[in-house]
């Protein structure tokens, strides 16, 4: 379902007309007016990764949006562009109010620390235990054990894996792996959660349970962008940004109220 004015309002975001949204004079300044801004961001196909037709959208703090399109339309690539934080091949990408071209390579890590990733490019480590996987995110940014361990236990409990903390991630079933992936993504208290086809491969019930957890994340004020193939699922979650394979996409703005 396309992002309608009424529907966007329900989710605390707003829509302006597309022309104004992409106008260079758009009032985007003022610190962190938005978390993500795509301005005609495009990319050719890379290896097995699909290309991305020029895409524009804006996501405000605490907002939620779904990138919807058929396989090969560039949903995963769009999420990866945000996760990497490097200048896209085409167009302009802004993260947390800053054009990524102005972010030095050595500073990109600081941007990534504000993201929670549930992407295939950043998988779980199968040989490691559940607790090792969760705490990896905190250890990667140099936090102390005394600081992160209690939070890791809380997250473990929240995703329902308390009893399996010492188990190797490779022995978990798919549902538990998705939950573990969500817990790891939230370990550092991100401002924006990126999820690529969350719950893919799950039956309806566990998938619904996972989305309820993501609902709670959003309810806590964390912005969420999900890439989804299922339009019905996407429509229930919030504003949708449609991507078409190798075609110019419509332009939407999604932001917090």
């Amino acid at each position, binding site marked *: 379902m396309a992002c309608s004015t009424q529907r966007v309002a329900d989710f605390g975001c707003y829509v302006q007309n597309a022309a104004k949204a992409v106008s260079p004079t758009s009032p985007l300044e003022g610190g962190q007016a938005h978390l993500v801004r795509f301005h005609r961001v495009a990319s050719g196909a890379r290896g097995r990764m699909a290309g991305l037709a020029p895409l524009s959208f804006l996501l405000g703090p605490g907002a939620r949006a779904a990138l919807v399109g058929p396989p090969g339309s560039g949903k995963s690539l769009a999420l990866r562009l945000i996760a990497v934080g490097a200048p896209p091949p085409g167009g302009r990408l802004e993260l947390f109010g800053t054009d990524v071209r102005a972010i030095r*390579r050595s500073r990109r890590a600081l941007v990534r*620390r504000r993201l929670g990733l549930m992407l295939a490019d*950043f998988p779980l*480590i199968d040989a*490691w*235990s559940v607790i090792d996987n969760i705490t990896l995110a905190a250890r*990667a*940014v140099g936090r102390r054990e005394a600081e992160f361990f209690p939070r890791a236990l809380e997250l473990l409990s929240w995703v329902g894996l308390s009893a399996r903390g010492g188990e190797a991630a490779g022995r978990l079933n798919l549902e538990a792996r998705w939950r573990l992936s969500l817990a790891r993504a939230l370990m*550092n208290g991100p401002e924006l959660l990126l999820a690529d086809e969350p719950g893919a491969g799950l039956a309806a019930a566990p998938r619904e349970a996972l989305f309820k957890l993501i609902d709670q994340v959003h309810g806590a004020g964390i912005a969420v962008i999900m890439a989804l193939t299922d339009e019905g699922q996407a429509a229930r979650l919030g504003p949708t940004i449609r991507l078409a394979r190798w075609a110019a996409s419509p332009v939407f703005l999604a932001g917090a109220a």
Partner: protein
Amino acid sequence: MSLDPRAWRPSPLLPPARGAGLAALCLGAALISLVAVLAMAWLSADMRARPALRARLGGGATVAVTTSRTRAELESLDAAAWRAREILAMSPGVASAHVLAPAPGDQAIAAALGMGAAPARLITVSLGPRAGSAKSATTRALINALSREGLVGAADDHNPVTGPVERAVTLDAVGLAVAGALLMGILAGLAAAMILERARRVAPRITLLSGLGMSNGALLTRLLRPVVLSASLAAIAGAAVAMAIMVFADPRLPGLAPLIPSPSALDLLSAAAWPTLAVLVVLAVATVIGLGRMKVLAP
């Protein structure tokens, strides 16, 4: 499996180096010890042997002197030698002259200098600039000075020897320097291969950690750490081996070939400098290659 928080120990962020590290460590130690010994040999040849040879062989002359036939009945050989010493000592370009005490080999040396079978005494002359002369005296000037005073002499300033010897020492020094540089190159290549192999093995983990917000500096440090640690251990072992070689090659010890002239405590200390340089080279090469890999693995 439930978790025991008290027993939990975090897994290493990057996998540790594999078993091939020991072989690389031994190879590195051997290379570094060779570099240290070669470097010391190069310094000995270039900075000690060459100047010493130049000073000892080029800074002096040996003069064989005898009386002329016309004065033979008027002046003994000893008196002629002492008079020659005075003449030579006063000649321009001569720093000092000394009559050598007669020794069994003198006649053979005098014959070699061109005196034939005539009885002769030997005088050593230190050549060098002195007041009144900007240059050292030549052998021809010394013989002419003796001849003017009725003495017959023959002199050798070692010129036929010093040239080839200096060229040989220079060649040795160049050869040793090239060999040392080649060994250092092999060491750098070994470090590069180790870093590339490690980067290839841990590539997915680097991408993951980078995505989770780990800084490139921290990632690079963890990527290089095993290689630099191996190089440091190899350097310590290499320095120890090099020092042992120098100590046992001391010419004062009987029965051992003097590989390096007069090793001293300073030599032994400087043997540590080359392994340190080797570690710095390894660190530089590893950093350059590591940064290159990081650009690909952690954009």
